[in-house]
């Protein structure tokens, strides 16, 4: 009896993989949580009747894609960070897309020059300051974070997190490696505690009085405001768009790329187009309080209240290129300890 059950189970295990790349579907490898994609993909399915299939993981998808080679069922890769996109390009896993709709909807600085990736949303890396303990205008730039007056008052997540690495890369791009390292040392000296947790945890720490200044992505704050259990904590902080009066605030992107193998190429491009349309961009903006990549779409109500954003016009490509240097810098400064 047990043996029979086992045999059935094994047979079922082997039968599961059957997923013919029939017409009418798109397969996605996603670095972004499936639940965040769901409303978008549902809208796409409703409009086109094309089915979407997703695998979400934060590691190993590029390796899986590479090894599966020409037989890979994946059509699209969706990421939450420029460095992952850049990696796909460097390893030759994605192909160019020459498409008028995409080029019209996504501004030039938010896509790869040869169409090897397209940004779908942008997110600003902001400074959060305690409303109680930090005066308005007391801190206005990323450079200020290294100022002595913030000693033992700053909280951040791990310096190795891709969002911080991208910020540090932009500092290298603007100031050179040496000056950036000096700045990072200054920032480390100002930390109130060992880097830990996620971006939300830094805001919570300000609310708790553990620190006065934190660094975090814009949508975490927006999402905390939308969550009634976290609203009070979010309301303890003031948003600062660093360097708004200078070179602009550091931004990162979430984006999409078409794989080399793409068995459902046409459907995949249709989905890419769809994601760049105002309809989809609006969903992105509402569901995760990010900035739409399509300039015709307004940010959601909460985000719009924060005012216009002046993004740093440093190319994303360049940020990605400094990634390794930034990682090594974090190690040398011993930021996380």
């Amino acid at each position: 009896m047990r043996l029979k059950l086992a045999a059935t189970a094994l047979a079922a295990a082997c039968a599961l993989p059957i997923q013919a790349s029939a017409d009418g579907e798109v397969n996605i490898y996603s670095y972004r949580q499936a639940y965040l994609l769901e409303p978008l993909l549902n809208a796409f399915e409703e409009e086109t009747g094309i089915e979407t299939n997703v695998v979400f993981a934060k590691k190993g998808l590029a390796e899986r894609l590479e090894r599966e080679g020409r037989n890979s069922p994946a059509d699209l890769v969706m990421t939450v960070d420029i460095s992952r996109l850049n990696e796909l390009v460097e390893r030759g896993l994605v192909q160019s897309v020459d498409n008028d709709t995409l080029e019209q909807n996504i501004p030039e600085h938010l896509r790869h020059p040869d169409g090897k990736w397209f940004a779908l949303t942008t997110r600003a890396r902001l400074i959060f300051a305690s409303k109680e303990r930090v005066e308005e205008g007391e801190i206005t730039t990323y450079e200020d974070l290294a100022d002595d007056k913030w000693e033992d008052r700053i909280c951040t997540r791990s310096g190795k997190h891709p969002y911080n690495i991208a910020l540090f890369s932009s500092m290298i791009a603007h100031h050179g490696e040496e000056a950036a390292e000096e700045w990072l040392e200054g920032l480390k000296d100002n930390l109130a505690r060992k880097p830990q947790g996620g971006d939300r945890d830094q805001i919570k720490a300000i609310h708790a009085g553990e620190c006065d200044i934190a660094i975090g992505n814009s949508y975490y704050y927006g999402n905390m405001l939308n969550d009634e259990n976290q609203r009070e904590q979010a309301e303890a902080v003031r948003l600062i768009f660093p360097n708004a009066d200078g070179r602009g605030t550091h931004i990162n992107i979430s984006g999409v790329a078409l794989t080399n193998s793409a068995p459902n190429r046409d459907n995949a491009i249709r989905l890419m187009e769809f994601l760049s349309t105002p309809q989809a961009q609006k969903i992105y903006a509402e569901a995760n309080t990010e900035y739409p990549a399509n300039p015709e779409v307004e940010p959601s109500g909460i985000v719009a209240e924060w005012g216009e954003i002046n993004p740093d016009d440093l190319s994303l490509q360049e940020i990605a290129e400094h990634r390794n240097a930034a990682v090594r810098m974090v190690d040398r400064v011993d930021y996380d300890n």
Partner: protein
Amino acid sequence: MTEAITADQTGADHPLLARRTSKRWLITAALTTAIVVMPVLSVIILALFPEENIWPHLLDTTLPRYLITTLKLMVGVAIITLFIGLATAWAVTMCEFPGRRFFEWAMLLPFAVPAYVIAYVYTSLLDYAGPVQTTLREWFGWRNATDYWFPEIRSLEGATLMIGLVLYPYVYLLARAAFLEQSPSLFAVSRSLGHSALSTFFRVVLPIARPAVAVGLSLVLMETLNDFGTVDFFAVQTLTAGLFDTWMNLGNLGGAAQIATTMLAFVVILVTLERYSRRKQQQFAARDNRDPIRRFTMSFPRQMICVAVCALPVIFGFLLPAITLGQYAWEYFDESWNTDFIRNTLNSLFLSGTAALTTLIIGVTLAYSRRLHNSRGMQIMMRLSSLGYAMPGAVLAVGVIVPLAAFDNRVDSIMRDTFGISSGLLLSGSAFALIFAYTVRFLAVSAGSVESALQKITPSMDMASRSLGHTPGQTLVKVHLPMLRGTLITAALVVFVDVMKELPATLILRPFNFETLATYVYQFASDEQLARSALPALIIVLAGIIPIILMSKSISGTRSIS
């Protein structure tokens, strides 16, 4: 009843066991090992081709700290798990106290809680903004963090405690099974020769249970070495953290594979040392089930100490996290209660059940082959087939993709060339890939425990069975398997619960649109919203409890029934 025989007298070289013991066992074992070792081999091959030599940078900067932190974590976890595991296993087996029968299985409850979940729960409880500190501030009128000192949960010590709390059941399970299998008369003899209960424990009971405890502890240590969720969340910089940094941030998979291989070597050395230290020991205990264990009757205060020793790990390792999750689940019920729920639960149950069965069958095959052919080669095969456990799940997943995708693409090319059709990917990205990965990863659990249990069955059993005309296969089914029932159940249970919680390999290898409870929880937890997935997290915990109760009952059942 129990005889300690030196190695050269064991059944290994006995003609009855060695003679023509059907080469089939050996060949099957060799083939199985070859297949199972492929992913590990793939990682080692990846390590030969790094994108760039990472060692100079690591040596200059973080490596020394990674190493020291890793060692501290492992030693700390070893101490905690040994202490809790042995003390409680001993108490529930040998002492009579109120609630003993309850604790027999309740001690296993923390095992159902994934380390990343318990870490999250305690952080939210003990954080500055959490209920504990907030209450303390209200009571004592402290204003902020500068007014008082409070232990930092996100620290090496915190991680040690969290990991120890959910892993001690490994030691408990195997130690308890070993204690139950020991003949009570041994204990009686030691006592009658003037040893106290405590000294008997250290001089007789523990040495006999040592192979089992060693298996339990090495499982604990390997899990600790590979833990990513907890150390990442607590920002504790272990080797695993360095490995993922090299892979994800420096984009150097080869370098990451080198670190993984180094960690592997580390584990191999540890395990070899342990085996070497008891190379001269061979223990065979004929289990005497008719002689019931006579438990100590103790004074009331001592009984209460037993209750406390058993209750504390359960409260902190299970009850408190479960209640907290339950509370979150209640708060966010509307968001987490949806139709995917049952499907995800079924997926988890299906994978865990199939993987538990597969690993058990392969584990028994290998361990029994080793009993039949106790050769150097067979020993090495045993060790090789267990290596998957000593590798971080995500790295192993890449190791699984490499041979599977190579096989798929090969078949595809042949099909294209000869028949002009494409077979596409047959195995990669399927449930098969997942079950293969789980088997490679958790084979150490089943093979290890079956092997250590088989060692305790005297070869005269085999000889008797064989001389009565049974083949090795018949002997296995008719003699060994019934005697191993408790061990088999334990091994299956451990694999079942482990697969239920397994995350990194599942994420990377799963088919499209395929969610398990663990992956479902992770997508929220990784977005700093574990509260929203508290319900499925609670279900992982609860689903892990059911087999624990069932199987634990039948383990203790083996003794009273037979």
